[in-house]
């Protein structure tokens, strides 16, 4: 198989991660920063699934090389990882945006550079 080399995915993930980090670093708007973080989490997920697909052990490896066993992927670790990350991303977005809303209420602003004090 391997119609697509693994490193293509890694490149895309690296790009997503860097762009997301850039957004998180430079955007003034707190919501935009959260979006950047979501992008970074997506990049991580792409990596996890790509590695699951390409390098996770197969049934042949698990059963021993001498046995006539098909090359099935054993284990769902990468997918489980991705699913849990998605759940955490949702939780993170929920709380993060709630904080943004609460801050907006007290500051009338979305701008992070103005949020340099944690006292309400």
């Amino acid at each position, binding site marked *: 198989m391997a119609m697509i080399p693994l490193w293509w995915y890694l490149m895309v993930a690296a790009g997503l991660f860097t762009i997301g980090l850039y957004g998180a670093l430079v955007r003034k708007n707190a919501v935009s920063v959260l979006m950047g973080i979501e992008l970074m989490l997506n990049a991580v997920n792409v990596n996890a699934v790509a590695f699951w697909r390409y390098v996770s052990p197969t049934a042949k490896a698990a059963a021993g090389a001498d046995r006539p066993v098909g090359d099935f992927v054993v284990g769902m670790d990468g997918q489980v990882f991705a*699913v849990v990350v998605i*759940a955490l991303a*949702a*939780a993170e977005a*929920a709380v993060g*945006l*709630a904080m943004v809303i609460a801050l907006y209420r007290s500051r009338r602003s979305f701008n992070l550079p103005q949020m340099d004090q944690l006292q309400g």
Partner: protein
Amino acid sequence: MVDNWGFIAVLTLVAFTVPLIGLALSWLLRPHRPGPIKQTTYECGLETIGDSWVQFKVQYYLYALIFVLFDVETVFLYPWAVAFLGLPLFALVEMVIFLGILAIGLIYAWRKGALEWV
């Protein structure tokens, strides 16, 4: 069951052509006489006051919030449901705990009035 995403890719392309064809046909057929009155914002004939990008109340956010978390719950619920009849009772216990914890959240939201639409 053979997963066939290739077909879905084709269908997606086709699906995008439908509105585009509609728009193109309409662009050929329709008249085009814009005017300043026509292009005003529709508000039953009244002048609009203020910008329409208004601020909404927090209730919307609370609904979306609860929705997101329950949506994530389904992500775990579906694989469980599909695998369930082949699993030991432990799986049922796990899911009862899982749902119980989330139900606490729902009850909390309920009691805190996050489910009230006022």
